[in-house]
C-alpha cells in the first residue's frame, strides 16, 4: 500500500534527447559572441579546431568529453555566461528542439510524474530551457569559478554516465520517489546506467549503440524527431487508466 502511494518521476536527458544541440554547439555560441569581433573569431576558431578531438573523446568516454569541453570556458566571466543565456536559448537551443519533445514532457506531467531534467549541461544554460519546457527540478553540472571567472574545471561530481544514476537514486531517496514506477529518457549509451535505474527506460532518438542495447533489453524506442512516432505503451496505459 505504501509503495502505491509513493511518487514517481520522469528523468530526462537533454542534448540529443529533447533537442539536437550539444555541449560543443553551446560553447560555440559563447565563442561567437565574445566582447569584440576579433576575440569572437579567435574563440570560434579554437572551437572549430577542437571538434575532431571532442568527437573522438565522445566516442571513448562521455565524462572525458565533458571535462575537455568545459575547459573551453576558462577565463570567461560568470556575468557574461548568465547574461547571454537567454540569447543562447533563442539562437541555438530553441530552434533545435525536437517536434514531439514538449508533448512528451506534458504527457508525463499529466500522468503524475515529477519531471526532472538530468543533464551534463551547465546550470546557466539550463535555466531558459527548463522554463521553456516547464521543468520544476533540474540536476546539472556547474563550472568552478574563482572571483567570478571560470577556471575551466567542473565542480564535482561530474554529472555523466554512472553519476547520473547515482544522482537520481539520491534524489529518489530524498523525495520518496519509487524508481520502479519511474521512467527515464535518453539518446546516448553513456546514459545506460540511468536508464537501467528506473522501471521504464525509454531509448529516445537513440544512437546506434543505444538502439542495439535497447533491442537486447527490450526497452521501448521513441523518436521525438518524427511527428508520427508513438509513445511507449506504459505512457498510454497509465493515461487510459
Amino acid at each position, binding site marked *: 500500500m505504501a509503495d502505491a502511494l509513493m511518487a514517481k518521476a520522469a528523468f530526462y536527458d537533454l542534448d540529443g534527447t529533447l533537442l539536437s544541440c550539444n555541449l560543443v554547439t553551446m560553447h560555440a555560441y559563447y565563442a561567437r559572441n565574445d566582447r*569584440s569581433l576579433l576575440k569572437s573569431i579567435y574563440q570560434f576558431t579554437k572551437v572549430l579546431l577542437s571538434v575532431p578531438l571532442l568527437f573522438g573523446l565522445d566516442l571513448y568516454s562521455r565524462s572525458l568529453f565533458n571535462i575537455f569541453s568545459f575547459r573551453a570556458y576558462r577565463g570567461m566571466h*560568470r556575468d557574461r555566461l548568465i547574461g547571454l543565456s537567454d540569447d543562447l536559448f533563442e539562437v541555438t537551443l530553441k530552434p533545435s528542439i525536437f517536434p514531439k519533445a514538449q508533448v512528451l514532457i506534458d504527457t508525463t506531467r499529466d500522468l503524475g510524474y515529477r519531471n526532472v531534467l538530468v543533464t551534463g549541461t551547465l*546550470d546557466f544554460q539550463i535555466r531558459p530551457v527548463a522554463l521553456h519546457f516547464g521543468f520544476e527540478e533540474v540536476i*546539472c553540472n556547474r563550472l568552478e*569559478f574563482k572571483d567570478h571567472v571560470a577556471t575551466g574545471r567542473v565542480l564535482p561530481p561530474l554529472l555523466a554516465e554512472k553519476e547520473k544514476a547515482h544522482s537520481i537514486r539520491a534524489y529518489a531517496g530524498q523525495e520518496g520517489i519509487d524508481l520502479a514506477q519511474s521512467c527515464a529518457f535518453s539518446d546516448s549509451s553513456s546514459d545506460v546506467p540511468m536508464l537501467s535505474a528506473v522501471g521504464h527506460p525509454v531509448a529516445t532518438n537513440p544512437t546506434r549503440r543505444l538502439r542495439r542495447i535497447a533491442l537486447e533489453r527490450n526497452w521501448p524506442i521513441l523518436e521525438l524527431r518524427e511527428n508520427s512516432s508513438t509513445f511507449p505503451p506504459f505512457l498510454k496505459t497509465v493515461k487510459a487508466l
Partner: protein
Amino acid sequence: MESRTTWRWNPVEGEYESGDPPAMQGTGEISAIEALSNKTIFLLGGTGFVGKVFLALILDRFPELKHLVIQARRKKNVSGEQRFYSEVLTSPPLQPIIHRAGGERVIRQKVQVVEGDLDQPLCGISPEDLERLKGKVDIVVNLAGVVDFDPPVNESVEPNVYGTQHIIELVQLLNAKLVHVSTAYVAGKKNGRISEDTAIPGYFPRRDEPGNNGMREEFSVAEELKWYEQFVEETRSTRATNPRPVRERLRAGGMNRAEHWGWTNTYTYTKSMGEQLIAATPGLAYAIVRPAIVESSLRFPFPGWNEGFTTSAPLVLMGGEGVKGWPVRKDGPLEIIPVDLVAAGILIVTAAVLCGKNKRVYHLASADENPIMLPRLVAFLGMNSRYKHKHKTSGSKLANAWKAYVETQVITVESLQARRARLHRGLDVIHATLTLGKTILGARKIDPYLKSLRDTRRQIRQQEITLDKFLPFMFHNSFIFETRNIQETARMLTNEDLKRIRWDPQTIDWADYWVNIHTKGIEKWIRPVFTASRHK
C-alpha cells in the same frame, strides 16, 4: 525552477561553496511575533511601491497583528477606502497574498482605511476617525512622501517637510511610536562609507566646508522654511514680469538650494529636513529607516515585482534602447536593494521600536555586505541590449545590428559631454539638410523626415535628462552605506521570526538577480507603462 545541488553561490567571493548554508540563528532579544501580536499599526504611504510590498509582507507573515489602519488619499470622486480596495488590494503584489489569507473578507476584518492627506494638519484625518484611533494605535509607519528627484520645490517641501510635521503631531496625539522611512541619500554629496551615527539635527552635507564668506554656515529647518516661503511667494508674484514659467523656476530654485547645502537634489534635501524635524522633537519614540535605491523584489511576493519610475528602471530601459556609453565610476558600487528586503527591514525595525530596543537610524542597503560594482551593471545593460536588438523585427536592420553587437562602455563625464556635442552637431547638420531639401522638394516629401528627427531629438534629450539625474549616484559620488544597525537588530530576532522575515543581502547573486529577475521584472511591469506614457 529548482536546481538540486549541494553547491551554494557565494556572491562576495565569486565562487561556489559546498554544504548547507549556515543556519540563521537569532539571539531572541527581540520577538517580532510577540511585538506585533495584538498590536495596531497605522500605515501612511501603503499605496506606493514599498508600501504595497510592506503591506503584503505583514499581512502574509504576521497574522498575529490585531489591526492595520491605512491612510489613503481621496482622488477626485473616489474615496480613500474605494481606492484602497479597488487599486491596492487588486494590485499584483497583493493579489496572491489576499488569496492566501482567505479573501478580501478576512482582510476587511483586519484592515481599517481612513481618508487623509499629508498636506493637512494631523494628516487630514477627520476628528471622528482621530477620536476612534486615540490610544489604540501602537506605532505609526510612515512610507509616504514625494520621491521625484527634482520637482518644483513646493511639491517636495509640502509632503516631505510639512507633511512630516503633520505626522509628528499625529503620532503625539495618538500617543504612539514612529518608524519614518527616509532615504540613505540624505547624506548628500559624500564619498566612502556613510555612518548611521551622524547627528541628525543641523546636518547638511557641506558643513565641514567653509561657506562663501569663509565662515562656517549653520543649517536650521526653521530658517530654511522661512527662505522657502519667501522664495515661493516671490516667484509667484513675479509671474507677470518674468518670462520663465513659475513651475520651472520653482524646480530650479529647489535644486539650487539643495546644491548650496551639498545635497544631490530637492528630494534628498527635503527628506533630510523631514528627518531633522523628527530628531528635534522631544520625547518622541522613533526610528528612521533609510533605504538606498529600491529595486525589484528578490523573492517576495514573487521575484521581479516592480512599479513606477523611481528605481533604476529608467536606466535599464535606456540600456534596452541601445545606449552604449555609461558614465560610471570604475571602482564604485551602485547602492541598490530589493524592495522585499526593504519591507523586511522596515518590519524588523518596527518590531525593535515596539520592544524599545531600536537604534535611531537604519540604512537598508547592500554594498556594505555584498557590493555590485557599476562596471558589472554596465555590462549587463549591454547584454540586455544585445538580446533585445538581435531579436527585434521592427526598425532599421543596421541600427538594430549596431545596438546588438557594439558593446557598452564605461566612459567619463567629459567623454559623455563630447559625445553629446558630436551627436547634436550631427543632428543639426541633418536638420539643415532637410530644411534645404524642403525648400527644393517641397514640404510633403520632407516633413515626415523632419518629424522623425524631432522625435529622435526629444528621445535623446529625455535620455540625457535621465542620465544626468543619476550622475550623482553613479559618477560624481561613490557611497557605501553602513548597515551595522539592521544587521545587529536582525540578529536579535528569534529563530521563529527568522523563518518569516530575513535580512540577507549578502546572499544576493547579483548576476542572476539583474539578468533573470530585475531586468525581466522591468520589462514586464514597467516598460508597458513607459511605452504608453511616451505615446500619450
